[in-house]
């Protein structure tokens, strides 16, 4: 089956002017401007199959949003080829726009002084939806995203979470086959984030929508994506299952809760004490040299243990390691 998105050697270079500080620097830049060339995306290639939910992660300025913007057709690549749902996004932007949905967490498409329903009605016309289809879809989405209570409230008076839910509805009215989500949870509280993740998951499962998600919040990616693409300095550092990325971790964290106070816990080779309190011990173990079982055996033989917790270290650590490489 042809992939929903296919990218080959995609490159985007920007030219920016540089200016020396101060008044003289400003004058100089008028008469002899100096330019700096930045390669935001550097020969990036990947395919995304229909119905996949892919996480795109990287630090600020890594090139993830630039890639997304090229996939939607609003930025023109310097070189390389893009195919989204059989279209070249730059040459067939309008045709493609009927098939994709976009949410940019830092931009909004809703009309600020109007209630969301007015924007939805407009988008129904823009996407040329039949009135009966639109009404049915709107009802469906209003139920899923629980918008009923504020459908008539001006957008400017909504909370960020409510606003983002409205943005989702606006982007989903036309049943897009591919959804581009660029930092959709930025600035949201934990509850709102959790809800949005549930919505995205449901959408991907029920409607088989292909989703590409960029986020600084790795919890978003961990909870939603089976596949992840890590990008930095415009280059792909990793493209594969989230699980394999996790397996690159060389250590685990084990936490013991004691029945009675332990003054000096027994030393265990190839482990590091992260925290020790009379009733608690937190150890980091090097999985290449010692197994979790060995550590458990050693501690449980020496102390009376009430409870144990085993954790993988945060995914940030893996990413950090990849970035450093």
């Amino acid at each position, binding site marked *: 089956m042809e992939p929903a998105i296919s990218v080959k050697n995609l490159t985007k270079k920007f030219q920016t002017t540089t200016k020396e500080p101060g008044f003289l620097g400003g004058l100089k830049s008028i008469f002899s401007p100096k330019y700096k060339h930045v390669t935001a995306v550097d020969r990036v290639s990947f395919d995304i199959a229909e119905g996949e939910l892919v996480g795109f992660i990287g630090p600020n300025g890594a090139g993830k949003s630039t890639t997304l913007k090229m996939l939607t057709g609003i930025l*023109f690549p310097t070189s390389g080829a893009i195919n989204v749902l059989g279209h070249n996004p730059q040459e067939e932007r309008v045709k493609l726009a009927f098939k994709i949905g976009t949410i940019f967490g830092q931009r909004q498409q809703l009309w600020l002084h109007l209630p969301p329903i*007015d924007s939805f009605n*407009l988008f129904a016309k823009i996407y040329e939806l039949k009135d009966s289809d639109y009404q049915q879809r709107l009802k469906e989405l209003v139920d899923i995203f629980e918008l009923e209570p504020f459908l008539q409230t001006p957008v400017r008076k909504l909370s960020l979470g409510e606003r983002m839910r409205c943005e989702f509805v606006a982007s989903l009215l036309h049943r897009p086959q591919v959804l581009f989500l660029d930092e959709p949870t930025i600035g949201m509280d934990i509850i709102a984030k959790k809800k949005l993740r549930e919505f995205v998951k449901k959408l991907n499962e029920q409607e088989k929508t292909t989703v590409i998600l960029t986020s600084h919040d790795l919890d978003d990616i961990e909870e939603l994506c089976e596949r992840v693409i890590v990008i930095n300095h415009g280059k792909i550092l990793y493209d594969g299952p989230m699980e394999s990325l996790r397996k690159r971790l060389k250590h685990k964290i084990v936490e013991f809760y004691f029945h009675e106070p332990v003054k000096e816990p027994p030393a265990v080779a190839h482990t590091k004490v992260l925290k020790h309190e009379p009733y608690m011990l937190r150890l980091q173990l090097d999985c290449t040299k010692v197994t979790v079982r060995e550590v458990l055996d050693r501690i449980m033989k020496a102390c009376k243990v009430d409870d144990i917790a085993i954790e993988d270290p945060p995914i940030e650590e893996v990413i950090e390691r990849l970035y450093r490489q």
Partner: protein
Amino acid sequence: MTITKYYSIAKTDILEKVTAVWSTALWGVFIGIAMFIFMNLWTAIYSGKVTLEGFTIAQMVWYTAFAEVIVFSTGIDWINDIGDHVRTGIIANTLLKPVNYIGWQFSVVFGNFFYRWIILGIISFVIAYVLVGSIPFSFATLPFVVIAVLGALILNFCISASLGLLAFWFEDVRAFYWVYQKFIFVLGGMLVPIDVYPVWAQGVFKFLPFSFAMYHPAKLFVHFDTRAFITTMIGQLAWIILFVAVLALIYRAGIRKVNIHGG
């Protein structure tokens, strides 16, 4: 389907503007003050004369009222709005939808034109009537005046949008706005009808695009003449064709330079 789409854009924009109707009405207050000042100036300039270059003082005040409404309703401020869309990357919101950006902007301008005419037209014409009473006007000529005003709207939009889109290269287009505004005021005949300028200047100014976006339709309102109407139509059409081509060129070249900051 396409027309419905653009009609809906215009309607939604008006809905949003109505939420701040007082700010448009405030322009009406400004027009009122400007007309009061002009009225006093013209009274001093006329100093007992019945006509000046074919205009009675009442016609002059009505010309000013009409010209003010044209300038506010066709809106040269779109230069800054479009420039901001480009500079801040808001243009991307439109480009991500199955619409034409220029078409979207024109729908907004067109919708605002009617909305502003209703509010500012009423305010200005009431003020003009209070200041100098009515002038002879045949309602049979009204459709022709409306056509000329719509021509001014389209011409002004093509020029404003072209200047606004220069933000792809210059980032800040406020200088272009400032210059264009002054051209409309002086060369376009907003401050005074072009007829009061020296003959050589009239010969030049009457053929520039600025006068077809302002002077010609305003003069048709106070002094309708079939020949003048035909001249206005030909002039507007010629300038519109030229500026549509310029706008298309700038848009095609500029859209490749879209640069959305962040991310």
